[in-house]
């Protein structure tokens, strides 16, 4: 117990030293908080997308089938639907037709997605009406009607009841009445979408009646997804098969790589902070060296001085990291204003929308490791320099 009391006394002394030399402490703390906040908002934003993708795994189709023509994705024949439905454990197969609309908004090149759904056969979620801000979702009878994502509606100032006319330079065109607009919350999945019936999409993209872009396969049990995927890949040629798990892994990896690249660049900032810590800690002022000399003269050991100095850097690093993580979390919750362009990609053409944020244990643990260990390591030598100060030299000065 007395040993713990001894260490806690050193901790109190270290804390009081930091308060006394608050200028020096703030010079280390403020850059550290900024740097850790930058790392944490990126990690939490990434964590939010990954968690969303993991939750989405149970809602995605179990298998998605696309046709490959000469190594590129092409049109798939609807004749495959019956053959896939014959495979054991397949509950349902739904066709989907979609394509891109390269559009110019002012001078910015953008690409929106026009997607046609087979409303008759689709699994329409009972909670979908919550996601519609204005109007309603498509019904099976709707023709020449569209539901827009918020990004499309706001970019072109379209509202429910308006008509959108899409034309290309060769004269192909489509005209759709807007019947619904998705809300802000679901923008991450729908912001660039123009949703129409599958027949309208086929007509627009010149697909014949028995063609589609891909087939969504639903299994009787999610455990059978891999089995079905292997069966489909084995039976049919020139197709590509994607399981729900692989789509989720793709998001995790894409954002993991993005987070890792950002972190590698962020290391430059961390090195700057470390140099700052070194510069502040290694310089022992006359007052401080006299203080240490007096402490040694009254009986403090070299080891105790070193321990106290290490505790100072530990308190600074823990305090700075914690404050940085909190600040980063709040900044992420606010939607990362100012730099969402990097985090979110083409956000320059999209309005601000809520970004899912996930503060998970592994991210916090990594942040603490990155915030505390390098600073503690770099403070070892300055702590030693402080500890070996000769009392008689410093007191006489």
């Amino acid at each position: 117990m007395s040993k713990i009391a001894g260490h806690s006394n050193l901790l109190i002394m270290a804390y009081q030293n930091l308060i006394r030399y608050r200028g020096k402490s703030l010079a280390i703390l403020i850059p550290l908080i900024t740097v850790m906040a930058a790392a944490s908002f990126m990690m939490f934003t990434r964590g939010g997308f990954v968690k969303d993708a993991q939750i989405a795994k149970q809602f995605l189709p179990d298998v998605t089938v696309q046709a490959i023509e000469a190594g590129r994705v092409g049109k798939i024949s609807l004749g495959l639907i019956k053959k896939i439905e014959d495979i054991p454990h397949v509950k349902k197969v739904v066709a989907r037709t979609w394509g891109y609309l390269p559009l110019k908004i002012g001078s910015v090149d953008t690409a929106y997605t026009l997607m046609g759904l087979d409303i008759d056969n689709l699994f329409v979620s009972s909670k979908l009406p919550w996601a519609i801000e204005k109007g309603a979702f498509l019904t099976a009878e709707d023709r020449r009607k569209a539901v827009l994502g918020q990004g499309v509606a706001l970019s072109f100032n379209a509202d429910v009841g308006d008509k959108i006319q899409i034309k290309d330079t060769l004269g192909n065109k489509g005209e759709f009445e807007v019947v619904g607009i998705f809300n802000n919350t679901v923008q991450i999945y729908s912001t660039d979408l123009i949703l129409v019936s599958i027949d309208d999409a086929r007509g627009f993209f010149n697909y014949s009646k028995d063609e589609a872009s891909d087939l969504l396969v639903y299994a009787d049990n999610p455990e059978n997804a891999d089995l079905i995927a292997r069966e489909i890949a084995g039976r049919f040629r020139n197709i590509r098969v994607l399981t729900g798990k692989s789509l989720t892994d793709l998001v995790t990896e894409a954002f993991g790589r993005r987070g890792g690249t950002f972190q590698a660049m962020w290391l430059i900032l961390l090195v700057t902070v470390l140099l700052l810590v070194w510069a502040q800690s290694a310089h022992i002022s006359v007052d401080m060296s006299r203080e240490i000399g007096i402490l040694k003269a009254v009986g403090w050991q070299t080891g105790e001085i070193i321990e106290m100095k290490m505790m100072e850097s530990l308190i600074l690093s823990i305090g700075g990291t914690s404050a940085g993580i909190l600040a980063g979390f709040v900044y992420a919750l606010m939607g990362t204003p100012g730099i969402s362009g990097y985090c979110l990609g083409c956000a320059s053409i999209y309005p601000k929308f809520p970004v899912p944020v996930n503060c998970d244990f592994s991210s916090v643990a990594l942040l603490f490791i990155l915030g505390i260990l390098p600073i503690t390591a770099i403070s070892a030598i300055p702590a030693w320099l402080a500890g070996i100060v000769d009392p008689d030299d410093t007191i006489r000065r």
Partner: protein
Amino acid sequence: MFPLPLWERVRVRGIQMIINNLIVTYLVCSFISLFIGLVAAFNGFYVWKKWDINSQADEQYLLEKRVYLLITILSVGFFLRLLMAPLWFFTMHSMIISIPGAMCLAGVHNANAPLSYIASALKLVLPALYGYWLILNFLDRQSEIQPFMKQKLLFIAPVGILILLEAIIDTSFFFSNPPRQVSCCTSLFDVPRENIPSMVSQSTWIWVIVFYMLILFILLTILYLFIIQKRSEYSGHGWWFENKMVMVSETLVTTFAFAVFILALHTKISPLFLGLPFHHCIFCLCQEVWDTLIFFVMIFIGLTLFIIYFWVVCSENYKNVNPIFSNNMVKLLKWSGFMLAGGLAVLSIHMVIAV
């Protein structure tokens, strides 16, 4: 799982690597500990050559000052390396989705074998050495005569070289992950009947029984040593103090016990706990069954502390300083015993439920 080339290749002058938060963090910690290891290795060798506690020369005073530096940075460095051992496995786990064909750590290891297996083996061996130095240093600082100073300083250079080797292997592994399909644990351990791994993997209770016998023997040894060590506080004598033969034999027995533990996990415990009678894979077991990590870590720490106890009490000059350190050695034995017993209890309960 469906094979897709889910490669996120970062091309840096022809080097291909997978990059994510955990890998970057691990590399940062690796570079810091490497730097610390290099500084410590050079200075440690220099101080060890010139050290003479009875000398009155100025040089000895400067050496004593330098020793404080060594102890400070090594304590930070070894603590960092102890933390990096579990971080290594978590980092490898994060690479599973980036390597086509990998379903568990076996696949990740196969992406760049044998570097990966050597690196993982070092993560199990070197923490014992780091722990030994930290405990030796802790005891040494409690005595004014610092009886273990020479041993501490002698130990630094070889450990520094091992840290260097470990850091090089780790970095090589992360910086060279060629995009290729790997085989998973099933084809490695279960399917081919001729290979040595699958021959060793035959489902059998033998290794489990041998493991239990060895662990019970070690626990009884701990109990015996605990009682005698408590008494030796006053008498100052234990027949095994400064006995190198005992140290070597106990190290061999404990290492053998750990190897048998791995075999027991591989042959019988993993198929039993996973519920897959023909699947022998420790990595899948650690991934799917959460209490595996708990009892694995507890048994590993228990055995390591047991080895460290013998390395300390069998070192030179220990008999003279036993009255000062006896309490601490008793605590060490207590921790070792509790960890082993706790790990064994968790394993046994799960085994009874699974059977």
